């Protein structure tokens, strides 16, 4: 790991730890935006980390930003940080100036949910080759709450963007591809934490005179869960590396890989959450234990930025188009 990435991760982890205190989650579930913590991540440069220095950013590598996204997953970070980081980068790349404040996710897939509709300054939207933004106040959101208890605004379709706030997406990974990879990194981080919590629980909890971890049935379930978490992790890292290459203009657009990774990450959420809850027993089904913070976010994040069905369909269409003879070259090049 580079020194810069380590520094960035240290800063992020310190801030995320503060932002994932009990009181913050209580606030979030009561509909109160954790503005102090948002200010802290902004002042420490995380929000603009993917922008160049002349635009007030830190221009870290995409992989560094994804390491932060993974850390956000590990802390179940209740802030719309990653959406904003990606949103500000794609607007910048399209030659647009992003409004200050948190942004709503990069939506290009019809019906979607936007976190904190009353707090974000704007929604970033993308479609075929274009990206733009629209002030949140001009959107008619249908209010609701997601599985993690966070306020969301639902959208049936992407609202039209004002003409002056639309730009062209350059070559390389599209905004939705960047967001799919970022969400997958968050999912991988949350899965790592869920695995930690589960190992901790089965080693500490004694039944029938021995720790749960001594039972083969329990060991097998943990192994399955760890396998899913590990594959999602390495797949997310691999897609991130491809995106980084593509963003540097060194080839490819990483569309196939990022589509695969979000399909796989979202799909694995079922097994990981199912096993984690099964092994935690009743205490995991309460708010007295931390597990719910992570599993509820996985149930939200698997649907965010395209659920597994959406990405599976995109991957499947690419595979069918490649044909039987073209499938292997598609896989091997990706």
């Amino acid at each position, binding site marked *: 790991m580079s020194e810069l990435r380590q520094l960035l991760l240290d800063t992020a982890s310190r801030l995320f730890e503060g932002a994932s205190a009990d009181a913050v989650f209580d606030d979030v579930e009561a509909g109160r935006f954790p503005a102090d913590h948002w200010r802290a991540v902004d002042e420490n440069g995380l929000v603009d980390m993917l922008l160049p220095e002349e635009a007030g950013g830190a221009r870290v590598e995409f992989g560094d930003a994804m390491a932060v996204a993974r850390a956000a997953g590990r802390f179940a970070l209740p802030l719309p940080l990653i959406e904003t980081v990606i949103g500000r980068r794609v607007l910048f790349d399209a030659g647009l100036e992003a409004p200050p404040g948190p942004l709503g996710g990069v939506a290009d897939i019809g019906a979607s949910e936007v976190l904190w509709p009353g707090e974000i300054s704007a929604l970033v939207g993308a479609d075929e080759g274009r990206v733009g933004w629209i002030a949140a106040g001009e959107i008619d959101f249908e209010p609701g709450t997601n599985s993690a208890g966070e306020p969301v605004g639902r959208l049936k379709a992407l609202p039209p963007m004002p003409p002056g706030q639309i730009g062209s997406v350059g070559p390389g990974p599209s905004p939705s591809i960047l967001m799919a990879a970022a969400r997958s990194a968050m999912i991988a981080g949350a899965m790592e934490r869920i695995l930690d919590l589960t190992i901790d629980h089965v080693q500490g909890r004694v039944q029938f005179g021995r720790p749960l971890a001594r039972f083969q049935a329990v060991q097998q379930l943990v192994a399955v869960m760890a396998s899913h978490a590990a594959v999602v992790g390495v797949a997310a890292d691999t897609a991130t590396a491809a995106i980084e290459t593509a963003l540097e203009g060194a080839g490819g657009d990483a569309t196939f890989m990022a589509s695969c990774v979000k399909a796989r990450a979202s799909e694995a959420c079922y097994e990981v959450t199912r096993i984690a809850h099964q092994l935690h027993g009743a205490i995991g089904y309460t708010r007295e234990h931390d597990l719910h913070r992570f599993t509820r976010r996985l149930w939200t994040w698997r649907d965010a930025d395209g659920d597994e069905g959406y990405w599976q369909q995109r991957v499947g269409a*690419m595979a069918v188009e490649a044909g039987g003879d073209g499938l292997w070259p598609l896989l091997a090049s990706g």
Partner: protein
Amino acid sequence: MRVSLLLSRFAVKAPGIHLRFSPAVLPETGANLRFEVRALLEETRAAGMWLAEGLSWWGRNPELSRALGDAGFIGMTWPKQYGGAERSQLERYVVTEELLAAGAPTAFHWFADRQIGPSILRYGTEEQKQRFLPPIARGELSFAVGMSEPDSGSDLASIRTRAERTDGGWRLNGSKIWTSYAHQAEYCVALVRTAPRSDDRHAGMSQVIIDLRNSHGITVRPIIDLPGRHDFNEVFFEDTFLPDDCLLGSPGDGWAQVTSELAYERSGPERFLTNFHLLCALIDVLGGSASAAADREVGRLVSRLWALRTASVSVAAMLEAGGTPNVESALVKDLGTNFQQELPEVVRRVAADEEICDRTLLDVLGQVVLASPSYTIQGGATEILRGIVARGLRLR
């Protein structure tokens, strides 16, 4: 309420025990290599040397293996003095996955290339290396693997076949089972007891190289497998004489030798590409007329396959770096073989939904269904693999 929460949070402060898979990239040289393999396969197939029969690496074709040997694709990581090409593990990975993706029948050289050759290279005497490695690399010498016994399957350390010291060598008694191609291979490398059982159940075992063609007291009994093929055998040894130079490494080192090669055996692309041809056949039949639902099913399989490959390549890079990623490779084999097992079920569903009646596809599907129970047994049963992963997570 907050007390238990604080305690549990405190408990996870320690760094988690994760399986470390770093993303790896196949080498630049791999691109050319990939095209060389594809060209050779195309040429040999066009010449009628082989057919993609759906058996993939379980199909045995000495002619194709010789062609691959001539092209330098067998034993390619070994030193040149022993017939190798001194390429990296990652380059070998590229060749291996190309062979699998094409459905090429490679069983003739597969076991020698994957595990026996590397074992001989690592533990063999100079004489053994010179004698066995060059013909293996030329695709001329075929090896079988003798591990399981009638009473020793997953519990390999319970083997009873024993080699006892005698004048100028060893006298072998016992039997091996599930020994694929023992009726056709020239040699077999077997794990046997060279000392009586003791408290250390992993002690007293050694690997021996057995000349199947020229030894006395060997009986090979065919075992027909579920699909009706003969590749399994039971091999009986009755006072079979093995010369001194049959021993691989030092007596008693057998267990360590066998377990050190497990990562090669378990993490490779043959654990998720064995029935890749069925997926290709489905896609061909779907053509441009796939429904959204069929796209999703295909995309689900392809995304899982791609993700598995990232993990498998990561293990190959660990091997290249000199590591022993036994836990990670157990994980790859578990997920990979489960994927392979589910693949025909998905194809069945899509074929029914899309009202596909393409005879070729349904025939391939039928063959794959018959082969599918074997995936999660051979080379380490699922339950054993998950036990290894659990141990890696320090649960046992």
